[in-house]
């Protein structure tokens, strides 16, 4: 049926090799890119090649990787550092974990290549402690690489030395932001600081530092093995190569997919993902996690890359992709993400700490059925102010889920506020369950299922729900076998 729409570059070894056996990685040309670089290329050549490849940061921002390395190379410092950002925290995202668990050596090799390019001899992998298997496999990989002299002092007999150390995150989402991450490695509070100075200037221990995401790194050895020019042929004009997405939500084939940039959402959701579960209709896809937005059906045919996703009010993000069916309430989704970001806000800047809390409260009001039209105006205004005034990426992007759903699903917000209804039937305060007299045969199943004991009626006679006592849990709706209960 479907032709092979996926192309694996970052995932090339995932699910193929034994990640705990360095020999399998080496058999598939592992560490050859690094070896060739150490013998035949200057650091400038490496940077040029990466620039030619067009590789951009896969953690979300999309900053050109070659340029990032060049900046750190040019800046002076007694020491320089390479940091691998493995603090994957977006709800529903598992791309980086899968790469680390399936192909840890690719990340180590890439870090050494970056170290050579920048002039750094130390690397840190900042990984969240909630990824025990990834940590375990990285540790094994590191040990094996040290043993063979592929990491460590005078790699392959050259004058280049590179050590890698692991640091564990303590569960804060904001530590995925590079300045907060650096603070955390240094043993300080995981709080971001204003940029500039960028890490390339003053990063870890105030030295020039390059922070790269796991997936970005996983591409690097293959880019050198296949040649930058060939890599640059894949993708769109501005975004080269592939992107890994963690496909989740109401889609038949949830999973890890890697597609060339420029693939459409339709191809991902329907051809690769096998369509929406239970034959329901497609409503939206959420990309970019808490920093991204919801994309409605009208954009299913947009070829996705960094720019096109931004244009339609979302962002590439790290690659979480949550598919939503017609029974999803967009206000509820926005509230879910806001709850996440308010929880994860570090509290340093007012806009994020208080602004997002207020945004969340307004959303709570709307889903409770007490929102006003004025609230909708306030929601948008406040969201835009937070975007403009927050200190770091977390705050700047936190209103995105609200603003994008308001942009494309304004009618749903209006329905909550004006008609006091939730069109998708998700917001329980706005839902009303009623028994259709003509259809009810009095089987008592609903009454038995009701935890509030608010369904009254005799056996074989139509039942009635006491609306004052109803807690809107929907248990009766699920229990009824005769479609006699309506939800509105």
């Amino acid at each position, binding site marked *: 049926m479907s032709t092979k729409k996926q192309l694996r570059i970052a995932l090339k070894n*995932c699910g193929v*090799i034994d990640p705990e056996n360095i020999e399998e990685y*080496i058999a598939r040309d592992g560490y050859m890119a690094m070896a060739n670089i150490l*013998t035949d290329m200057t650091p400038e050549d490496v940077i040029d090649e990466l620039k030619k490849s067009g590789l951009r940061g896969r953690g979300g921002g999309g900053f050109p990787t070659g340029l990032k390395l060049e900046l750190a190379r040019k800046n002076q410092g007694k020491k320089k550092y390479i940091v691998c950002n493995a603090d994957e925290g977006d709800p529903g995202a598992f791309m980086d974990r899968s790469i680390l668990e399936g192909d840890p050596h690719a990340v180590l090799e890439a870090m050494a290549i970056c170290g050579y390019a920048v002039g750094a001899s130390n690397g840190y992998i900042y990984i969240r402690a909630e990824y025990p298997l990834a940590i375990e496999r990285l540790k094994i990989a590191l040990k*094996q690489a040290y043993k063979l002299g592929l990491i460590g002092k005078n790699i392959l007999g050259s004058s280049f030395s590179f050590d890698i150390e692991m640091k564990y995150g303590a569960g804060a989402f904001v530590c995925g932001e590079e300045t907060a991450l650096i603070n955390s490695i240094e043993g300080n509070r995981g709080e971001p600081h204003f940029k500039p100075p960028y890490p390339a200037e003053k990063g870890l221990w105030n030295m020039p530092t390059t922070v790269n995401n796991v997936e970005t790194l996983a591409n690097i050895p*293959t880019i050198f093995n296949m040649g930058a020019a060939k890599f640059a042929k894949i993708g769109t004009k501005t975004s080269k190569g592939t992107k890994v997405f963690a496909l989740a939500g109401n889609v038949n084939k*949830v*999973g890890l*997919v890697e597609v060339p940039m420029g693939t459409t959402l339709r191809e991902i959701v329907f051809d690769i993902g096998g369509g929406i579960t239970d034959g329901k209709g497609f409503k939206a896809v959420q990309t970019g996690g808490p920093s991204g937005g919801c994309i409605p059906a009208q954009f299913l045919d947009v070829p996705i890359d960094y720019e096109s996703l931004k244009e339609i009010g979302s962002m590439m993000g790290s690659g979480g992709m949550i598919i939503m069916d017609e029974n999803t309430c967009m206000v509820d989704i926005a509230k879910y993400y806001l709850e996440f970001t308010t929880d994860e806000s570090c509290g340093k800047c007012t806009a994020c700490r208080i602004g997002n809390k207020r945004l969340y409260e307004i959303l709570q009001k709307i889903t409770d059925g007490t929102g006003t039209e004025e609230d909708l105006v306030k929601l948008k205004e406040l969201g835009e102010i937070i975007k403009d005034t927050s200190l770091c990426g977390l705050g700047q992007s936190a209103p995105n889920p609200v603003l994008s759903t308001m942009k494309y699903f304004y009618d749903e917000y209006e329905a909550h506020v004006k008609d006091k209804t939730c069109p998708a039937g998700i917001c329980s305060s706005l839902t009303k369950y009623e028994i259709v007299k003509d259809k009810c045969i009095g089987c008592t199943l609903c009454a038995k299922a009701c935890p509030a004991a608010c369904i009254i009626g005799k056996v074989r006679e139509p039942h009635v729900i006491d609306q004052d006592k109803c807690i809107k849990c929907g248990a009766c709706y699920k229990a009824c076998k005769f479609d006699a209960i309506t939800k509105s």
Partner: protein
Amino acid sequence: MKKLKNVDELKALRDDCLEKFKGSEKTRIIVGMATCGIAAGAGEVFDSIAGEIMKLGLGDKVTVVRSGCMGACHSEPTVEIAVPGEESVLYGNIDSQRAKVLVRNHIMRNEVVSELVLEKTYKTIS
């Protein structure tokens, strides 16, 4: 394993490894064992396959390997069987019983268990 002193030694090791993994006529059974696979029961599947291979005395013909995520989260646990000289086959929704069926049918009789096959929707960069 000794420290590699130069690129040539790495190349030599690569060739040795290639010989070991590809040159041999062994069938390779890969069990997807990332966190997701293990949570879905891939550990039991691995043990079942390894046990069956032992029991049937196929140890010198078959290697069983733990890999990372194969991407098909919708059908974990997943198993891929690569018989030398043939296109490898990806199986999904395997449990310890089905694992034994795979060994008996695909390995012993060279018959693909078609009802458990997953379509591969990807190409890998060469």
